[in-house]
């Protein structure tokens, strides 16, 4: 019997894995029929998930946690058994700000760039015209990565600059209209700003946290229990899609699929840049390779590490001005479901980490990690400031960031 799963998504390149699982027949091999609900706001993706229009959704990892904790909506426990990818976002500044920063089309390091940005930000704040940053959502890794970076560079996100929500498709227009000076958004929307000649890409979020958790596949916890066998099939299909996605042989085919009107509705060449980790930073310049810009497959990238959920909780507490609460921390950690991921892949030979948590940002040189039946190599996963996050020390990590 074929199970039917309805999947909600926003037109972004990192919705790729369920889409490609469908298009290449990997889902069909698992006796799954996937249908897609394309929306244009996260609020609607979330509402459709909560009220049963979708079974599962492409979702900002922090939003899955915020929804489970009842931020902005009545609390509904969500479950994320699969990470759809790491990073894939970039920071784009307006041409005017780029001139002030003197970035000249190099992906400058976050520290050097942050020092220059601080000077400009303080000048503008003192002049009563603070720099405005657009992020895609209050509960997004974009917002948290941007804030992490700014705060570490000595820029107070809620006092020295303004951070506002801008829907990804309007990010370039908002920059053109002078409504924002800078944006942190996923692809293809940075590249679209570059192609329109309104801004320059200056940083990738992978430069802030080399293995930053980005989107997850989210379901209502209750729904997951009802349809777990089908979800496990989807997980296997998406792992195969990931293997296909990272193979350079398939970049053209996959870019053409994702570019279609029913998915990203974006130019093929721009989609291809993101999936090949090659970005054009300034209009008319040659593409530059940026390793690990998007990270969808290797190193068990899709494994929902509980420590990632806990890091996101630490940032939610930090930026929503809350206090650490052990019960809430536990509820947040419970959103990530390594047990389901393991159950789905246990007999497939796919590497399965033996632990549920790890110290995030602790690997600066390649490290062998034990997985069922062997080891995998974990590469650099550091935060740009050299800090690491030990989930056993969650409360003191939160306090240290006050």
């Amino acid at each position, binding site marked *: 019997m074929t199970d039917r799963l309805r999947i909600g998504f926003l037109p972004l390149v990192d919705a790729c894995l369920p889409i490609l699982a469908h298009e290449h027949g990997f889902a069909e091999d698992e006796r799954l029929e996937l249908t897609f609900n394309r*929306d*244009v*706001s*996260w*609020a*609607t993706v979330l*509402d*459709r998930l909560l*009220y*049963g*229009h979708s079974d599962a959704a492409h979702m900002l990892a922090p939003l899955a946690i915020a929804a489970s904790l009842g*931020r*902005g*909506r*009545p609390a509904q426990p969500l479950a994320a058994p699969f990470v759809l990818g790491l990073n894939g976002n970039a920071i784009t500044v307006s041409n005017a700000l780029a001139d002030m920063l003197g970035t000249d089309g190099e992906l400058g390091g976050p520290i050097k760039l942050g020092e220059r940005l601080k000077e400009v930000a303080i000048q503008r704040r003192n002049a009563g015209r603070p720099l405005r940053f657009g992020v*895609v*959502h*209050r509960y997004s890794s974009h917002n948290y990565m941007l804030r992490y970076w700014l705060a570490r560079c000595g820029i107070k996100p809620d006092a020295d600059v303004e951070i*506002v*929500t*801008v*829907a990804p*498709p*309007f990010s370039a227009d908002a920059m053109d*209209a002078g*409504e924002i000076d800078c944006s942190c958004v996923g692809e293809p929307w940075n590249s679209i700003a570059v192609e329109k000649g309104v801004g320059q890409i200056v940083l990738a979020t992978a430069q802030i946290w080399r293995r930053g958790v980005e989107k997850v596949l989210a379901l209502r916890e209750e729904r997951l229990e009802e349809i777990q066998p089908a979800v496990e099939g989807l997980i296997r299909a998406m792992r195969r899609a990931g293997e296909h996605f990272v193979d350079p042989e398939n970049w053209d085919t996959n870019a053409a699929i994702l570019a279609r009107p029913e998915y990203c509705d974006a130019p093929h060449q721009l989609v291809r840049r993101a999936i090949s980790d090659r970005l054009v930073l300034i209009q008319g310049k040659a593409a530059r390779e940026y390793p690990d810009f998007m990270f969808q497959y290797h190193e068990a990238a899709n494994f929902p590490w509980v420590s990632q959920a806990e890091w996101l909780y630490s940032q939610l507490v930090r930026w929503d001005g809350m206090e650490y609460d052990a019960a809430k921390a536990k509820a947040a950690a419970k959103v990530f479901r390594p047990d389901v991921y393991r159950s789905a892949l246990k007999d497939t030979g796919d590497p399965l980490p033996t632990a549920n948590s790890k110290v995030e940002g602790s690997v600066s040189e390649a490290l062998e990690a034990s997985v069922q039946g062997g080891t995998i190599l974990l590469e650099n996963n550091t935060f740009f400031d050299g800090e690491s996050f030990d989930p056993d020390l969650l409360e003191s990590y939160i306090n240290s960031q006050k």
Partner: protein
Amino acid sequence: MRVAIIDESGPRASIIKEGLATLPGCEIFVVTQRSGLIARMAEIEPDIVFMDLGNPSRDVLEEYFSVSRALDRPIAMFVDESDDASIAASIDAGVSAYVVDGLSAKRIQPLLQTTIQRFQAYARLETELAEAQNKLAERDIVDRAKRILMTSKGVTEPQAYAELRQKAMSSNRRIIDIADAVVTAHDLMGDAS
């Protein structure tokens, strides 16, 4: 009660406005422009906001509401956290509602019901219109197919139609599909046919 309708579709906003205008004590504001949305909200100071689910500015609006909590004007999603049926009904109809905390459900329900009905009515109109347009387009294709057959085979119009109909029946397809195939083949062959 101050009600804001945010909808990029002007006609639908008018239909909702007209419906709400029949309710007593409602001052209604329609916002169809995307730019300057937040500034408009601050001017209007609505007690209730209705916004269609397909509006890309929903995240922007929710961000504004979560920030405006600090301004002592808390706004909760939907009518009442416990009123799941109303929420589900509004999501099904394609509309989201944001309501200032503390407004009684008794005052809100008629507004929400009216808005949901108007949304559904508009969706029906759109479906009917799409169907009518589709039918017109289909009739146009069948007419073209008939003319092609009349010219190329020298048959009368009723004969051409009978041939299309017979082919459809014998191949278990619809007449429009056969007509479409005839037109496509004719276009491909160009002057040669």
